[in-house]
């Protein structure tokens, strides 16, 4: 199976991209030059820094550098940033900056890169408050990517168990559970999300909102998985090993957990991977319209909320980069899921 996976170059690439995204999110403190909420009035809407290796006199440097920039204000009171070609600021690596706890364990203040305190580096530009977009994307990845994983695990937990129960018992239990599933599936996902979110108070702490988002997304997500698992359980329960387990006196829940649900895993793995983007997008949608993660906390969704006006997009196009991260992460999960599905061919793998 690993062999087949390695043969698929695209899938391997996607896996690497995802792993590096999760790596960036996990070590965001180290990779980001600034704190996620560090504001700077001198650099409101500062464009992405141009990184140079060759200076005005065509000297080639081994170390990259940027030019210190300054702004003038035009007739529309807009800031026009201009590089000051006389003041080169070298980019330094492993510099000391704000202190943090790596993985919450090791105290450190080393950052991957940075510039001297007199200047600032915004490799993906800055937002309306002069906060570094790159930093905020990394911190946002923590929320956006973890919501996907945790949300999917919770909803699959519920979906597997309730689907298993519905399929195993059949009859009235099945009837009730499946009607419930249909009720959830019938309401368009986005409106259900809005409705659920609006039933909670709007001013919650960021941790509460985070947990709430996971709960909302899982609540919507378990229905479809429960329906498929129920179908599989319906056919699995006719297996003689299930009858054997019954005749041995095992309890129903033991049979469902030990002998029914594990047989749906090869299917579940594929759909788990395929459905993670849904959670990432769900969080992004809620946060973007301001119902999810609140400022100054960053998530890919609320970073995009500043890109809602066409004027902003035209003037500061770099504020769309969080969208590229969302697209990249979602696509990688899709490709990975599709590849897994091809490899775990039900006809070849599952011997029901």
């Amino acid at each position, binding site marked *: 199976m690993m062999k087949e996976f390695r043969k698929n170059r695209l899938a391997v690439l996607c896996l690497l991209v995802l792993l590096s995204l999760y790596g960036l999110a996990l070590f965001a403190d180290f990779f980001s030059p600034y704190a996620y909420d560090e504001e700077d009035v001198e650099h409101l809407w500062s464009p992405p820094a141009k990184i140079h290796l060759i200076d005005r006199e065509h000297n080639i440097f081994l170390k990259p550098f940027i030019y210190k920039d300054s702004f003038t204000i035009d007739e529309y009171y807009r800031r026009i940033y201009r590089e000051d070609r006389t003041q080169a600021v070298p980019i330094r690596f492993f510099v000391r900056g704000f202190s943090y706890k790596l993985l919450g364990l090791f105290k450190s203040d080393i950052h991957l890169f940075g510039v001297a305190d007199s200047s600032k580096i915004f490799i993906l530009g800055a937002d309306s408050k002069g906060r570094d977009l790159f930093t905020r994307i990394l911190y946002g990845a923590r929320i956006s990517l973890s919501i996907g994983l945790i949300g999917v695990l919770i909803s699959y937990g519920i979906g597997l168990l309730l689907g298993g129960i519905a399929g195993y018992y059949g009859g009235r239990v099945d009837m009730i559970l499946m009607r419930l599933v249909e009720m959830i599936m019938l309401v368009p996902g986005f409106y259900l999300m809005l409705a659920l979110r609006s039933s909670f108070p709007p001013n919650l702490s960021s941790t509460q909102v985070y947990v709430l988002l996971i709960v909302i997304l899982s609540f919507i997500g378990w229905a479809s998985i429960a329906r498929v698992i129920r179908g599989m359980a319906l056919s699995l329960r006719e297996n*003689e*090993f299930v*009858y054997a*387990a*019954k*005749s*041995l*006196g095992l309890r129903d829940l033991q049979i469902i957990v030990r002998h029914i649900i594990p*047989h749906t895993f090869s299917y579940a793995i594929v759909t788990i991977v395929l459905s993670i983007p849904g959670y990432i997008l769900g969080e992004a949608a809620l946060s973007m319209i301001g119902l999810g993660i609140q400022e100054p906390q960053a998530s890919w969704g609320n970073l995009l909320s500043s890109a809602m006006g066409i004027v902003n997009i035209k003037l500061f196009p770099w504020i769309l980069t969080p969208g590229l991260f969302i697209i990249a992460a979602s696509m990688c999960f899709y490709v990975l899921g599709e590849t897994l599905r091809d490899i775990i061919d039900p006809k070849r793998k599952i011997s029901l």
Partner: protein
Amino acid sequence: MSKLLEVKNLKKYFSHHHCLVKALDEVSLEIPHGKTTALVGESGCGKTTLAKTILGFYRAQDGSVFLEGKNITACRRRFLARNIQIVFQNPYVSVDPRYTVYATLYEALTVFKKVSSQEAKPELVNLLAQVDLSPEVFHRYPHQLSGGQLQRVCIARSLINRPKLIILDEPTSALDITTTLKILTLLKRLQKELGVSYLFISHNLKLVRFMSDYVWVMYYGKIVEWGSQKELFENPRHPYTRVLLDAAYQRLTETASETLETDGCRFRARCTSRDKRCQAEPDWQEISSEHFVRCHRSGDTYV
């Protein structure tokens, strides 16, 4: 003969596309202690349904099952599990393919006993020895075992809680002929050692003759004849029994017919010696104290 299990007027109907299928139509059956009772009939005649109804997998519409005089029709599964076990036809689908032999047996053991995996080992080694398997198979998965080995594992699993009755649902029809003989010999030996009773479900009358003490013949949800093995094989009275016996020796002696009668004698469409009386439901006729038949023509002499 003292009765271990008694099935009384068991009815199990399935509705299938608005059509009522009488899988068990007032079936009564007796299983004595420490003996092998065979249940024979063609596939689809309700043998397995009867087994599953006895085990409580299906709820019967009517009738009851008694275990040593106690009505167990609505009994809980855990009570039944201590007394009745089943061995299925295809061992490869009757153990969870994701479990090793050890895990399969350990799970069965822990249903009624709280033991750690380590403590259970000597007991499981003994158990395997009883079915002529060495502990080497413990850490194998089902697909790594031969059909015969795996069926021994299934037999070991069914013995684990010392049941009084084991239902053998065509236990050898997925095995080859030499393995079949070994398994049946093993089962006979276990019966002698443990005094366990068997309900041996089969359509192979040669094996039934080898294995059983009593034989019950079933035709589409009805018992049509029963008797001791000796009587039934030497003096079969129901034409269906004779058809089965002849078929076991590669002789086809029936009228080809796809019709299935729903009243009177169910077998009459296929019967070579039917007459007007067969329109009515036949009643039990006593041939001897251990041989009964349900045929209007049982008194006639057969050629």
